[in-house]
């Protein structure tokens, strides 16, 4: 023990002089480097194989990539996603505020809604809305207790396949978004309410100016996930014979039997759209992250890079 101590402390006495000139040698990772090299080689081989294998029919992929039917399918998928997400987020925010309400009736209505729409399969919900005419042949929008109807019509006319798809996707999404937004609001420190109340703020203003902007930081990443899974989840509406991106591809390959190339075409468009959406997500996250650690970290890492 003692010899060890002295030998350990001896160089420490000279340390100050040595410290100034001693270069730092970073730890080397030979195993990690070998594994990386192997993975890169495997990836390249796989890419070459995919590119050279004629059975992929890349010429067919190129032919159909900008086919009008595919493009209109992609557009419809995008519209379905944007509309359903927008309605879902707005409804979800209302449900979240209801769930956090002090009123037990509002709270339980929101809870029941979320329970039902999260607990049943989306596919079932879509088919249900599609077949709503079987339950309610005539839909009338009007005043209750026999008052005059403002809108009246056959359910088959009012609820088109597209309408059923939008209804199903939006109502289902609202349940998920409600929970995400509720979690975000709950993550904001109680002291923020105290401080804004002490400054004379209250109600919607307090929510909009102080709480929601801070909740956004927590809400955004899972919402990004929701948008992306919604984009792909819209392919479920093909059961309603709506020509979204996947359904359009399916129709084409049922005519020409080029199944794999057309699925590749559809996948390329899905990938492109999710990439663009992820880009916006990152921008939004940076916007709502300002003032939190991430900003400081970014600045620090920039400083570190400048220093080195």
């Amino acid at each position: 023990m003692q010899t060890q101590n002295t030998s350990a402390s001896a160089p420490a006495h000279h340390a100050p002089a040595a410290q100034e000139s001693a270069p730092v040698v970073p730890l080397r990772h030979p195993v990690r480097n070998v594994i990386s090299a192997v993975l890169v080689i495997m990836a390249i081989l796989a890419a070459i194989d995919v590119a050279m294998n004629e059975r992929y029919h890349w010429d067919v992929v190129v032919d159909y990539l900008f086919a009008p039917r595919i493009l209109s399918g992609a557009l419809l998928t995008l519209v379905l996603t944007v509309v359903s997400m927008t309605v879902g987020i707005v409804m979800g925010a209302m449900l979240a505020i209801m769930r956090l309400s002090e009123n037990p009736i509002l709270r339980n209505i929101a809870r029941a809604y979320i329970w039902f729409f999260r607990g049943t399969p989306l596919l079932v919900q879509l088919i249900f809305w599609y077949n709503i005419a079987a339950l309610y042949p005539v839909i009338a929008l009007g005043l209750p207790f026999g008052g005059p109807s403002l809108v009246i019509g056959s359910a088959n006319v009012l609820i088109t396949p597209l309408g059923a798809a939008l209804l199903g996707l939006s109502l289902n999404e609202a349940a998920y978004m409600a929970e995400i937004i509720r979690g975000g609001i709950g993550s904001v420190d109680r002291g923020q309410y105290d401080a804004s109340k002490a400054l004379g703020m209250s109600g919607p203003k307090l929510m909009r100016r102080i709480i929601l902007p801070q909740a956004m930081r927590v809400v955004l990443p899972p919402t990004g996930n929701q948008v992306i899974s919604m984009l792909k989840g819209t392919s479920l509406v093909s059961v309603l014979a709506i020509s979204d991106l996947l359904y359009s591809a399916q129709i084409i390959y049922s005519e020409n039997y080029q199944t794999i190339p057309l699925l590749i075409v559809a996948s390329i468009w899905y990938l492109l759209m999710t990439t663009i959406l992820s880009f916006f997500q990152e921008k939004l996250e940076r916007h709502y992250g300002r003032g939190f650690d991430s900003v400081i970290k970014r600045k620090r890492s920039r400083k570190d890079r400048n220093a080195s």
Partner: protein
Amino acid sequence: MSNVMVEAQAVRKSYGNLEILKGISLEVQRGSVTVLIGPSGSGKTTFLRCINHLEKINAGRLYVDGSLVGYEERNGKLHEMKDKATAASRRASGMVFQRFNLFPHLTIMENIIEAPIQVQGRKRKDITAEAQVLLDRVGLGDRGRSYPQELSGGQQQRVAIARALAMKPQLMLFDEPTSALDPELVGEVLDVMKDLAEEGMTMVVVTHELGFARQVADHVVFMDGGVVVESGHPADVLDNPQHERTKAFLSKVL
């Protein structure tokens, strides 16, 4: 205009079966500094939060600047005010918290001008100039563009004081403003508070800084177990306590 800024009459507050305040009565004179001391759990922070209705009282009466806090008296009953009216009645007082509670998503300048713009409807240009004066006064004139997280605890607490002052309150409430600070940062916050006291601001301060109490306070209130045990001039309460509980507390703190 009465000379009494805060008047508490037998204020009671409980959470469920647990009674935190068991009838607090005290007066705070306009322009005076009152320091509340006492062991943790004695109810001093709860009482402070009752003064601007962050906590609802269960019985008794609490007047700030002559009007009831959070309630309207009609036909001999106290009716709870609507949120908006309560919010409006809070504007007479500013509050500084133990954990600063600055808005992390806003810059220092935005933190200060947020409530004057949103609540008082002040013009951004006017209030920004005033906020700059306030920031200069707390020694942070050059930090307006920073975010709260980029500041030390002491700096954040000074911003919190400036933020409360921007609403031009008649009364400032301080809830253990130095308890969350590193020891070397306590002084800078106390200095700002001393300046404020010298300018004649009415202040109610919950603190463990007995030095501050001795130096700045006009009135020291010792609370324990939800009641006021002893109150009076700082020299009397701190140096010549009459009650056993006060003596026991002071001997532990000093």
